[in-house]
Structures are given as structure tokens and as C-alpha cells.
């Protein structure tokens, strides 16, 4: 017999060791998320996946599933919170979607549409984040970084390279690369790295292929992010792997 918890009134079965998010996605129920990726250990930093569990709020991607939990996700209170968090992420960086080559393939943008984020909500911080165009094949546009650390995790855990890391604290926190010069060209990154594939926004970009798929025909132009996330779901994380390279993971 498998255990079961409730998500917005539906029965969700789960395996021991799964989090609420993992069980929900596997069972075909979408909970909005950004820093969670089915192939990696949950991180719990963006907080977009926050749900109400027995009346208290928690990040569903890191919350261990337990029998009998009553989880509320698709309620206005939580969607309102998610809208604010997305607005915060937009305000924190420099996101000029019309000129971004990730437009249409960007999870942050797609989530904004899905959650009906129609206004800026906050004063934008306009941080100064210079590009790194030093590498011959790869461009880094830090303006769009939402600090999800997926690239950090992918490079360390899958590629075994530690190309990316975080520097600074608080609002000055930012992504850096592993080179004394601080430039991507002096790292051992390769186009075939996992770290090249995981960025949910438009930071890590292969050069010279930007607009080969026209806007309007891109991933989230076809179907909303909620539908596509479920397609990705069955590729489940190995919950046992412990990773000490990224922030906040036990």
C-alpha cells in the first residue's frame, strides 16, 4: 500500500523520500516552480512553489511528503504570493524580454504569463551586471540571472567541473565563474556541458544560434509552462545524493 496526501482535493500517492513537489509532478499535478528541476536535488530558494500544508506555508519542493497532509496550492492566496515573488525576480535583474533571445523559451517569462503577472509591482533595482562575452562559443548575460543555481549544480554534479559558483551576500549575491581572471574563456566549460542546458532564463547562451527558432514558435509559445513541466516530471531526482556545492542543501 502506498501512502497518500491531499493536494487541492486530489489524492496524491508518494514513495518514501519524495517531496510534495516530486510526488505531485509524478502524479500529474503541477505546482509552479523555478529553481526545482526534476534531475536535481531540490534547492528551495526561489519559493515560487510555496504551498499551504495543514494551514502553514512551506516550499513544496523541499517539504517531505507525509501521509495525510492537506496541501493547498492552486488557491488565490498562494498564486498571489507567487505573483509577488515573480515580480521581485523581475525587479531584481534587468529583463528586457523583447530583446532577449531566450524570449519564448524562458521559464520566468512563461511563469509570468501563467500567473497573470500584469504589472511591475516593484521599483526595479537596475543592477549593474556586465556581460561576459569572452568565450568564443558562449555568452553570459548576467542581467537575467535569477540565482536558481541550476548551472552551479549541473556543472558540479553532472559535469564534474565547478564552472559556476555564487559570490557576495544578500542583494549583492551574483554568479561567478571558476577562473582567476573571472572570465568564462579561462574556464573549462564546453558547449556539451549539462550546465549549458539548465538555465531557466537567458543567461547562459550558445553564440550564433540565438534566433534560429523564431519568436512565436518557441517552447512556451506552444503550450504553457504548467503543461510542459509535467512532461519533464518522470525523470526523477535521486533523492539520496547529497550535494554540498550549492546553497542550503543539507
Amino acid at each position, binding site marked *: 500500500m502506498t501512502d497518500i496526501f491531499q493536494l487541492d482535493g486530489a489524492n496524491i500517492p508518494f514513495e518514501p523520500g519524495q517531496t510534495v513537489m516530486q510526488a505531485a509532478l509524478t502524479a500529474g499535478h503541477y505546482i509552479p516552480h523555478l529553481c526545482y528541476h526534476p534531475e536535481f536535488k531540490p534547492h*528551495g530558494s526561489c519559493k515560487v512553489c510555496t504551498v499551504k500544508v495543514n494551514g502553514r506555508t512551506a516550499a513544496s519542493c523541499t517539504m517531505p511528503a507525509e501521509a495525510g497532509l492537506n496541501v493547498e496550492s492552486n488557491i488565490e492566496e498562494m498564486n498571489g504570493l507567487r505573483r509577488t515573488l515573480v515580480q521581485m525576480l523581475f525587479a531584481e535583474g534587468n529583463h528586457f524580454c523583447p530583446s532577449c533571445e531566450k524570449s519564448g523559451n524562458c521559464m520566468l517569462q512563461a511563469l509570468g504569463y501563467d500567473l497573470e503577472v500584469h504589472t511591475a509591482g516593484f521599483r526595479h533595482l537596475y543592477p549593474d551586471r556586465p556581460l561576459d562575452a569572452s568565450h568564443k562559443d558562449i555568452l553570459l548575460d548576467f542581467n537575467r540571472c535569477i540565482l536558481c543555481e541550476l548551472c552551479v549544480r549541473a556543472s558540479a554534479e553532472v559535469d564534474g567541473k565547478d564552472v559556476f559558483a555564487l559570490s557576495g551576500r544578500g542583494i549583492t549575491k551574483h554568479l561567478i565563474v571558476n577562473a582567476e581572471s573571472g572570465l568564462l574563456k579561462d574556464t573549462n566549460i564546453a558547449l556539451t556541458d549539462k550546465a549549458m542546458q539548465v538555465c531557466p532564463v537567458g543567461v547562459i547562451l550558445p553564440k550564433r544560434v540565438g534566433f534560429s527558432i523564431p519568436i512565436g514558435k518557441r517552447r512556451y509559445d506552444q503550450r504553457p509552462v504548467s503543461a510542459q513541466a509535467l512532461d519533464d516530471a518522470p525523470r526523477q531526482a535521486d533523492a539520496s545524493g547529497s550535494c554540498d556545492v550549492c546553497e542550503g542543501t543539507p
Partner: protein
Amino acid sequence: MAADSEMQTTGLDSILDRYARDPNALLQVLREVQELHGYISSAAIGHIGAKLGIPHARIEGVASFYSFLHLRPHGEYRVLFSDNITDRMLGSQALMEQMCQQLWLQPGKVSEDGLVSINTTSCTGMCDQGPAMLVNGRAITKLTHQRVQEIGHLIRNRTPLADWPADFFRVEDNIRRSGPLLDNSIAPGDVLRAVIESGKDVVEAVKQSGLRGRGGAGFPTGQKWEACRNAPGAARHVVCNADEGEPGTFKDRVLLTRQADLVFEGMTLCALAVGARHGYLYLRGEYRYLLEPLQGVLQRRRDSNLLGKNILGQTDFDFDIAIHLGAGAYICGEESALIESLEGKRGVPRSRPPFPVTHGYLQQPTAVDNVETFCSATLAIQMGAEKFRAIGTERSSGSKLISVSGDCPRPGIYEYPFGVSVRQVLQDCGAVNTRAVQISGPSGMCIAESEFGRKLGFEDLPTAGAFMVFDDSRDLFEVARNFVHFFAHESCGFCTPCRVGTSMLKQTMDKIAAGHGTRHDLNEIEHLDQVLQTSSHCGLGRSACNPVLHTLKRFRPAYENRLKSLDFEPAFDLDGALARARQMTGRDDAGAHLKTEET
């Protein structure tokens, strides 16, 4: 260039060797390199990385997390003015300005000759003897115009810190009221010996005493130790939290000065109870000056067989304590962030569950407790549960150290049985015309006169010890604004709501302070609070709005008087945007400002 990088790597190997090239000691290594060279160069990072097997970027990431570590030369003399509201009330801002003028310097910048930098830092825990500063990590208290001027001269003459007047570095205990903790004069080892001889069950004894954690949350200590003892694991650890970062708190400093044996005895009792072999004291960097005296106490205890192998002749009772220094990060007081920091990483709180009692240091069961908790545990066992419970109240047994600062003639340490009223403390410290008291620091509560009958204790006003007094000359809006800046500065940046939200909150408070605030801003603050409370990863984010909410509720006119009557005012400040141009052209005359309309 080659000679340069050679210089930057000299001495590194002996530091690395002292830490047995343990990657977990990365922060300690970086801290020592900072002390040795004044900053951590890229060459040094390369060298350390090669020896410890840690990527360059990850070391950079760790170093950049901590305020006291610098990746670029930051002056031979690095001056940091403590910027708690209590320092400000004692005139710290004018003193800093004076020093900047004397040394021809702007805050945050390094002088062109590389001699000195001046900046602010979060509360250094000297609120009862402020204004205070740190120079190259050493605490200096009781700043006056004269003292600051003398310091300016010493810096200009490049006088080594060791030759500065010892008086500058004197830190007073200022004990104003003592009780069973501060008066305790039992000989080191006696409680431990009695426990071993009687075979007493430490966990049971602590549980029966009703002792609750003194670090703020008030978790029952005996229960924590029991959970740690029962958790499966290859090894167990005891950690003493001496990060004492909450602004306005300085009682752990006094306990570590006066009663270090009680602290270490408590840790050893805990080790006996849970079966730990390793203990760590995580000492905030601001208390660097306590490192050598504390190491002296540890050595004395080793020499008396109170630490080390076969303690007091008990075969298999091996336990020792190492001191780890922090490097300027309030968040490292949060227990899981503290453990990350102990492991040499960025001090980012972990996802919980699992909790440290089952997955702590190196993922092994770990009991983390506050300095005062360990002292009180020793006392509770010494006195016996019944006598200990007779002090304090039903659900808050024992005594509590209160750190009193702000507007009163007798700031310092007061030990009371739990249950003392705010009014009583105010009376004892001689405060008059008190408008408000901030209980337990910025993350605690701000209360007004009508509430001074309330009592300190877990039943009513829980406190980690801070007690900041504000009289009727103080502006509670500015108090809240200072605290908001503190949280924004100390947010670790891990989670979206706190990283971005504390910055937004700071901007809004600054906007109101500049006279551009509207009712809309007050609504936005309430919205931000909702978001931070419900979605932050740890207690810092969850309490970051408290200073504003508490003062808004009790002292609303302090905000409303500043608001424009408009409902909305854009945050963009045209005149403010010209500040940079003014600075570049060296102009500050009326013609260089846009006219502001008089209201």
C-alpha cells in the same frame, strides 16, 4: 609580479598545516590569511585551493560572503564603526564623519595611499560602552571626539596596533545586577565530577530543571539533548553558539569573559549526555579579542583532565573543544547556517527538516545551544532541578541575563529571575521618560509605555537578552529604519523573498525618510511583510518586517508626519539622480540642485 604573488602566499602553508589541510577549515584559513595579509589575494586563493582541493570560484564565494574578509586590498588599517541604533544615539555618525574628514576619505573607500578604509558594520556588541569600532578586527570602545582624533593620528603615523594605548581596547563587563549565574564561583570541574561520581543522568536532570534555550526560541534543552543522543550516527557533536549577532545583545560576551568555565563545563556535560567527542565554540569575529583568553581556559581545563582523553579518569570519555571564529555575518547565528560556516562554507541556512539534532555538523547528530544555555545547564545540575525551578516562573525556569543599552544612566548586564517586568528593569537602570523598549533586538518586539507592565519570559515577552531603551527624544521611525538596514545588509541572499524583499523595504523606508513617502508605501510595507512572513526560508526573513510593523502599530504618527498627502509618489528622485554628477563636478551649490517645492 612573481615576487608579488610570492609575498601573497608566504605564511599560507603554516596556516594550512595548523588546520591539517582540512577543507572544512576553509573559513578559519581565510580568516587567518586576512589577518596576516590584510586581504585575500587571488594568488592566495589559488594556493589554498590547490592544497585543499577546492575550486577557485567556490573559495571566492565563501570569502565574499563574510563582511570581514576582503578580496582586494582594503587598507592597512580597516576601521569599522559599529552602526547599531545605540551607537548612533551616542553620536557615532558624527564621529565617523570627523574621522573621514581627518583622513580625507569617503566611507567605504580605501585611501589612495592604501593606508586606511572607513566604513560601518553591524552592531559589535558594545552597546553599553559605545560608540564602538573595530580596527583590523580589534574592538575599541567609548569613542569620543578626542579618542577618534588620536586614532586618526596613530593611523597616519602608521603606529602598529600593538602600540596603541591599551585603554582603547578595554572592554568592561558592566555587571549591574548579578544572580546565581554571574555569582557562581564553583570550582571548574566540580559539577562534572559530581555527575560522574553519582552516575546521574544528565539528560533527565536537564529535562527536570525545565531549562529552555536562551538563544531566543526557547526550545527545551533536555529534549534537544535527548533527541541528539538517540539519533543514529557515527559521531556526535556539541556546538556552542557564541555568534551573538542580534543588535543590542552582549550578555554572551560577558559570560565568556567571566564564566567561561561554566560554558565549557556545560558543553562537556552535554558531550557526556549525548556521547559526543568533538565540541565547537562558534565565536563571532567581533569578539576576536576573546580568542586567546578562551584558549587559555581550554588549555587549563585540558591540563586538569577536564578535557581531552579519559576525562576525570573515565575510560572512553574523550571530548575536546575547538574555537571557530566567525567573520562578520549575522546569519551565522542561525543554527544551520552556523553549521555550514563551521564546515567552511557560505553561511546559508539549510532546509529543515532534517534538523541539526539528527543531521548537523558533517550530517551527524549535533546539539547546538547558546552560551547562556550551557552555563544554565551547568547551574541547573549543580543546584538540582527543584531549586533551579524555584527561580523564575512556571514555564520559564531559572534566571536570565539582560543586556541593557540606550537611554539610561546605567547600561550593562542585569541578571533577573524570569518574570521580571519591563518597568522593573527600566527602574533599575535608571531610565526616565521612556517612550519605547526594543525587547530581544530588531527581530524581537518594540513595546510602548502602556505595555511596560509586561514580563520577560516565555509566557509573555520571550527574549534572547537585548533590551534597548528609547526615551521621548527619540524618533521611532529612525529606530525602525536602522533595523531595516541591518536586515537588508545581513540577508544571506539565498531565498527570493528575503533577498529582494529586505532591499525593497529598505528603499521604501529611505523614501519615507526623504519625505517622498505616501500612504501607498505604508500599504506596500504591509504587503511585503505578508510575503516575507509566509515564504522566507529562515527566521531572518520572517522577522525582517517586525521593526516596521511594531512601530507602525504603536507610533504611527512618526510615519504619518513624514508622508506627503499624496496617495502615490514615484520613487524616482530627479534631484537625487543628479548626485553623481554633483560629486563628479565637485559642486553642491543651489544651482546644482533641482528646486524642491515647499509644502
